[in-house]
């Protein structure tokens, strides 16, 4: 080893500023989407936390050529009606990494670690030498604070510049604006429009106005005025941890006894579990359990950890997950376009890989896309109500969709592929502990248990869908039958009349009789259509 090499530690900010690709800034187009996403996530989390129905205003502008090759200078502005941020907290929120109120708390919030928005500030700073411009006002403040927040990369600290108090005609809220190098992609699977529509789908209580580059301003109204109550956090389940995490977890609790720590810091560990640990004879005894936590050594932790791993523990409670609900999803799905039918399934919360999770699925057929019979269905993926837009093939959601045999529900589907047709399949995974494949939260790790749970939800939605399709084909059949009767009935009777030289009154009676006979057939079909329609109503009733 070279002696001259001085080993240095770098700040978190330094690390991320050099590895922004890990947190969603791997391309110019992704930079725009990630910046927007982080700002919107923060705004929605803040509103929900304070029981405010969110109103967002989003503007994305092209300001000219950027400094990087083939880039454009982009401005992303997101304004919310959230509680506002105290002036002193602004540098922390926008300029410091891992300064989060949500880190490791086991709640179903969008943001988890406090990396994203600071990364957006860093990106702006690196490409345009300009931090985030923020205006914020809390209810208590008379005037708003306006400032530029920059990341002090060396020390992982936020710096506030050009601070001033200004008049702002809002009761409370935050406006954040990033100017940086990027490239705007509006349409397509990874486009901004898709992100905004997806966000509106899983946030029925959200209203937003947006203007994307040279497009006309648009607005999406909320379809629900119920603010989702984010359930209280739960402690992690021992079976979801590795030894290192287990030990690190102890540092949060200071000088308490081991048994108290186990009971307080983990879900499903109580007195009876402690008794069982002793009884199991794997080295846990009362002395160890009554030890002070800061006195416990590595061997103690190993003993405790392996004993817990070898025990059968109850699964964690599912009360910590948050659902959008079938009702809200049903209303929300109509915001995606002209939907001619849809089916929605909200599974009960369950446990996958010892983590509580809830799966919700919405499948809709879009009228304006009926001609696209050969195109694959559009997949919208959500993790804790945040759209996922990249690297879909490895995602648990896509794997679950392709594993379902959609042909049995009346959809076309090439082998082991997405089904075809003008459908949107939206799948939402909500869990306080979602396992992503990467830090930029683009792909949900495909564990067997999770894929199976998603698959079940999809199959339920598929069954509802097939009832719609059946009702449709019945209706088409009726139409065909009616057409047949009208066309061939008179031809048949007139032919018979000519051959037999029958009289007019015979002809009339025969015509009436024929219509009666064929009408009975049509009535039968009509009844079938009615039964199908009734089942449909029952299904929709279940949804309501």
């Amino acid at each position, binding site marked *: 080893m070279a002696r001259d090499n001085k080993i240095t530690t770098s700040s978190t900010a330094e690390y991320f500023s050099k590895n922004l690709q890990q947190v969603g800034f791997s391309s110019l187009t992704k930079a725009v989407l990630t910046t927007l996403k982080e700002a919107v996530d923060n705004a929605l989390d803040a509103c929900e936390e304070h029981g405010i129905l969110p109103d967002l205003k989003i503007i994305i502008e092209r300001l000219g050529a950027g400094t990087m090759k083939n880039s454009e200078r982009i401005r992303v502005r997101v304004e919310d009606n959230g509680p506002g941020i105290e002036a002193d907290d602004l540098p922390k929120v926008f300029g410091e990494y891992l300064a989060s109120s949500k880190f490791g708390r086991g709640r179903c919030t969008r943001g988890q670690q406090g990396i994203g928005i600071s990364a957006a500030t860093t990106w702006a700073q690196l490409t345009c030498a300009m931090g985030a411009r923020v205006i914020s006002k809390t209810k208590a403040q008379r005037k708003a604070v306006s400032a530029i927040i920059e990341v002090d990369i060396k020390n992982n600290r936020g710096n506030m510049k050009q601070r001033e108090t200004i008049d702002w005609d809002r009761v409370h809220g935050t406006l954040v604006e990033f100017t940086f190098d990027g490239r705007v992609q509006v349409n397509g699977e990874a486009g901004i429009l898709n992100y905004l529509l997806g966000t509106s789908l899983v946030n029925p209580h959200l209203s937003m106005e947006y203007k994307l580059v040279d497009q006309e301003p648009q607005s999406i109204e909320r379809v629900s005025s119920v603010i989702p109550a984010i359930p209280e956090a739960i402690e992690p389940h021992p079976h979801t941890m590795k030894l290192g995490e287990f030990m690190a977890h102890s540092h949060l609790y200071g000088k308490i006894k081991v048994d108290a720590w186990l009971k307080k810091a983990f879900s499903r560990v109580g007195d009876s579990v402690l008794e069982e640990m002793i009884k199991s004879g794997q080295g846990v005894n009362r002395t160890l359990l009554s030890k002070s936590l800061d006195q416990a050594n590595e061997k103690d932790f190993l003993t405790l950890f392996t004993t817990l791993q070898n025990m059968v523990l109850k699964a964690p409670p599912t009360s910590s997950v948050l659902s959008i609900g079938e009702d809200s999803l049903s209303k929300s799905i109509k915001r995606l376009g002209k939907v001619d039918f849809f089916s929605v399934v909200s599974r009960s919360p369950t446990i996958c890989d010892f983590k509580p999770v809830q799966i919700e699925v919405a499948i809709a057929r879009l009228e304006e896309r009926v001609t696209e019979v050969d195109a694959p269905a559009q997949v919208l993926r959500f993790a804790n109500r945040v759209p996922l837009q990249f690297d879909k093939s490895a995602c648990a959601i896509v794997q679950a969709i392709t594993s379902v045999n959609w042909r049995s529900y009346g959809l076309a589907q090439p082998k082991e592929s997405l089904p075809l047709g003008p459908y949107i399949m939206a799948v939402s995974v909500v869990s306080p502990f979602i396992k992503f494949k990467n830090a930029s939260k683009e792909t949900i790790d495909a564990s067997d248990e999770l894929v199976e749970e998603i698959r079940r939800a999809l199959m339920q939605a598929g069954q509802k869908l097939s009832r719609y399709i059946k009702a449709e084909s019945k209706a088409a059949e009726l139409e065909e039958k009616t057409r*047949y009767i009208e066309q061939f009935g008179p031809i048949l009777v007139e032919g018979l009349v000519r051959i037999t030289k*029958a009289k007019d009154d015979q002809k009339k009676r*025969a015509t009436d009789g024929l219509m009666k006979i*064929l009408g009975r057939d049509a009535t039968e079909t009509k009844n079938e259509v009615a039964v199908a329609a009734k089942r449909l109503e029952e299904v929709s009733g279940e949804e309501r």
Partner: protein
Amino acid sequence: MRRDRSAIKNSIPAISRELCAKLLGDLEKAKRPILYATKCALDNAIYNHKVGYLTPGDKKVATELNVSSVKKMSRAIFMLEVILRNIDSGAVNTKRELYYIGKGEIKGSSKLKPLDFQDQDESDETIDFVCEILECYREDLNCYANDRGGQTYSQQLIVTETLADGEQAVIELSKLGTSPFMPKNRPQNLSLSVSKKIDFCLIVESEGTANTLVANGFTKRHNAIVVGAQGVPSNSVRGWCKLIQEQLKVPLYFFGDLDAYTMQNIYRTLKAGSAASLIRNQDYSAPEVKFLGVLPQDIAKYDLFDYPVKENDAQEVRALKKADDALKNDPFFQDKRNKGSAEILKWLLKNKRRCEQQAFFSVDPKDPTMPEKIIIDKIKSGSYV
């Protein structure tokens, strides 16, 4: 019971009107009319050894008027009207001509547009359906197939044909020179007589070989009738052979290839009719006909060239497969009176070889009359099944 064809034919208009009146009557009562037709399939075929051909069983195909069949029935009534007009005026047509006549009628009326035939298959189906419900031949409906095969040579045979206008034409086959007589697909209009006693009738699978035999003097040396079948016998060939059997009461011999296709599709059809034509086998089969050869034992006896069935010969492979099935399900081959034919099928299945009728020309290449000699030898010695 033997039905009189001309009586049936004459009664077609009356039967049709009766049927239509019943349909109309049912409709007036809002009762669903049902049309019954004999099921023409192997599972409804019975081999009646007393008559010697395949007869229909009791199975009927019922067509009930409902939304799905209203188009089929409307088309049938439409076609029936065209046919009745033909019968009335004495006009005749082929199926293809009826297809165009139908299209022409429909073109002239917007009301009939939904009936329009997309292709001839659709009008053919309609004609067949009319035949089935009236239980008659399409010839009874003045719809004739193109007369194919049946080229006939004889120095003794005289055919008298009754023409549509009632006049009679007398054809002496000996006066036709090298031209064959072609039987029309209307056996009921023909009657046969002879100028001298005829000993037998030889039906040859290949009309080329039949022609060769005659050109080499077969009919000069023997008091016989030689008929070229031209492959699978058409209705006219089948009806003609039946007529020869009925009116001349001479032995009939079939001379063709030794293979599964010839045995099942040509010989069996000639002798006992087919499952598809159950209702007409009575008039279109000649149960007295014998299979002269080529017989399996002829190969050894005359040292004939034979060869294995080629695996890529789809027709032969299919025929072999069918032969296996026929031995199990075909009432003709199952009947003990046709054991000889069944034995040949078994031999073919076992050996997977075939031998063509023309192989007789290899016996003595220098003698063009060798095949004739063998044929006569076989007839005299009773070497047939």
